[in-house]
């Protein structure tokens, strides 16, 4: 039943099942992430998006199914081994280390000596604020600064794939814009699998989407098709999501 992976897919999930305790959280999630693009996972709260990311990383290893990264089956391997293959993780709720300074948070993410020096310029160009906050302890940062640090941390080593979980959650509109811009810049060099509740942000960034619903992945395809499919959007993501027409209006207002 396994299909031959197309050459340009960096990550493929095939029907993965994940349990947390006795709870069957993922009941067959499949998705693929083509190289050099942004793929977004959409779905309601509690649908299983975060669990899918953690299953890829091996933090909640899937019991069934295959996870293929860069042509290699990685399901069941230790999380640190998986990460060392070149996967960066930006967790939800900005899980930065509060007891560590900004500098230490970044240094800790090094996989080999000199990783940070190598990417320092790039990181500080992307988030100039962090340079100023370099010596501050993590628990003194504002929400937005913490989110930037969480993303920056994933940029310290060389990564082929970034897993980013709800980067815009709880950010002020101006910071959302900045974060979007940063992710767009990142996507020019790295493949990204994104989880995003903010449909506008998701539709502007991503080329492909996969809908996660109730631990399954009922739909996936091109983002450009989804923005026109009002029915699908309303069915899986809630009636409050703006349709394409409204989005265009807001887009014009922006420019």
């Amino acid at each position, binding site marked *: 039943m396994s299909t031959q992976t197309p050459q340009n897919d960096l990550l493929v999930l095939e029907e993965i099942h994940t349990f947390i305790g006795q709870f069957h959280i993922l009941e067959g999630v499949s998705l693929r992430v083509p190289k050099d693009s942004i793929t977004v996972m959409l779905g309601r709260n509690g649908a299983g998006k975060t669990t899918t990311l953690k299953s890829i990383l091996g933090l909640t290893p899937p019991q069934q199914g295959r996870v293929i990264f860069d042509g290699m089956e990685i399901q*069941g*391997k230790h*999380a*640190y*081994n998986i*990460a*060392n293959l070149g996967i960066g993780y930006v*967790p939800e709720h900005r899980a930065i280390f509060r007891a560590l300074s900004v500098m230490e948070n970044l240094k800790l993410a090094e996989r080999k000596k000199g990783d940070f020096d190598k990417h320092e310029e790039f990181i500080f160009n992307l988030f100039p604020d962090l340079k100023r906050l370099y010596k501050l302890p993590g628990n003194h940062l504002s929400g937005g600064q913490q989110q930037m640090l969480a993303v920056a941390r994933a940029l310290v080593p060389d990564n082929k794939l970034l897993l980013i979980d709800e980067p815009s959650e709880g950010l002020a509109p101006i910071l959302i814009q900045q974060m979007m811009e940063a992710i767009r810049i990142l996507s020019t060099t790295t493949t990204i699998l994104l989880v995003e509740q903010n449909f506008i942000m998701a539709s502007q960034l991503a080329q492909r989407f996969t809908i996660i619903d109730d631990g399954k992945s009922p739909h996936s395809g091109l983002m450009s098709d989804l923005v026109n499919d009002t029915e699908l959007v309303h069915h899986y993501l809630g009636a409050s999501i703006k349709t394409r027409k409204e989005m265009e209006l807001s887009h014009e207002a922006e420019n």
Partner: protein
Amino acid sequence: MKPKTKKIITLSIVVLVVLVITLLLYKVAGKEPFIRTALSGLTLGSLFFLVAAGLTLIFGLMDVLNFAHGSMFMLGAYMGWQLYTNPTFIFALLPHLLAFATGVMLLPLIKPTLVRMKLPEKWVNAIPKITLVLALLLAVFSFIGFDILAYAKTAMVAASIATAGNPFAEITPQEPFATYWIRPVLIFLSGLLVAIASAKPGNKQEFAVRERLSKTLPVPVIFFSLTILALVVRESAPKAVLLMDGNLRFAIAVLVSIIFGFVFGQVVEITLIRPLYVRPTFIIIMTLGLSYVIRELVQLLWDPLAYQMVRPPFAAQPGKAANLLEWFQKGSSTLNIFGVTFPTYRLFVIALGIVMFIFITILMTRSRLGMIIRAGVQDPQMVEALGINVKSIFTLVFALGVAMAALGGIGAGPFLPIQPLMGDQYQTQGLITVVIGGMGSYVGAFVGAMILGMARAFGDYFALKYSLSTAIAEASTVIIMIIVLLARPQGLFGKKE
């Protein structure tokens, strides 16, 4: 900024309370008794810290309360004392241990090949179990007929070495090589089997990069050479050690205790604790059980007696030094401090505690390991997601904690009777220290240990002065704990959950 001001307020209150109490004690006790008792308190506090530091680091990172910590303190004392007075025992066992380690250290060399083997599912599951059973059998075989009790019992002879005419006459001779050689061979194979079992042959979920030989070969080669060396010097080394300068011998004893604690801690964490992280309460029961096993083994080897370890020469010469410099030159056993005569060895213990506190502070704030520990306390999953093997960090921290307890044990050796229960009191006080200082805080452990040490010393002093029961001193530490917990449930330096 709020938490910082709060911290400063707490700190100043603690300092104020300490100052007031100090002044009060000074007034009530008088100058000389005050200085003597305070120094005794610092000595005790130093030992409490060495025990509590490991407990608190281990608890902070892994949520494990190690109830065998006191036994490990005791084991450290026994191992150091053995090297100091009866190296026969350690050198008899050394080839065994090194041969076993050589086998185990081959793991990185063989793992990449073994993991890539194509085996049926059945065998993948069965091989580790079969090899582990075989390893155990081989290990048992390698000890059959090995009179380990005789080597341990030599201790009682060597304890009086200074007086005997020919101190070496009573040392148990090592087994002749002609019959001995098979033991290290067997246990090396046992170690190799353990390595094969841990490599998990054919297991697709394991991950092993093929490294260059220049990276994987040196460690087993070093251990192999050490094994050969240990085999060769089995007979001569104990005598050489006993003839050595006493201070050097003591330094080696301290080193042996630390290394022993480090290795023992690793073995305990990997084999006994790691499988139980999913059931934290079981770990408490397991470590409690382990402490009894250790105690019984020690009683078996050395009988349930109390031994007195001779103080090292740098603090054993008769006479009183007028100042530090004179102590360093003459190695006097006592020193004049502000008109008070105080044993110099105890000053050494105080210094040991302070040096270890500085070492831990540097480790935690300056090193990558310290960074990983501080991050891991908050969120081990995220540390793992950065590509760091958190399991191996757990092992390392546990081993460090045990090594520190063992160091405390040998440090206490020359002024505490060495006996199987010597660690119990220190474990209890260490646990109280951790609660007072705040779970997981090494600064808290230091401050808490010093407070407790003082409470014990002054409790004993006043009990003696007013003919009260010495139970007052022991109760005082618990009372302090209760007061601190009522004022700050998370301990002096603990973080609120």
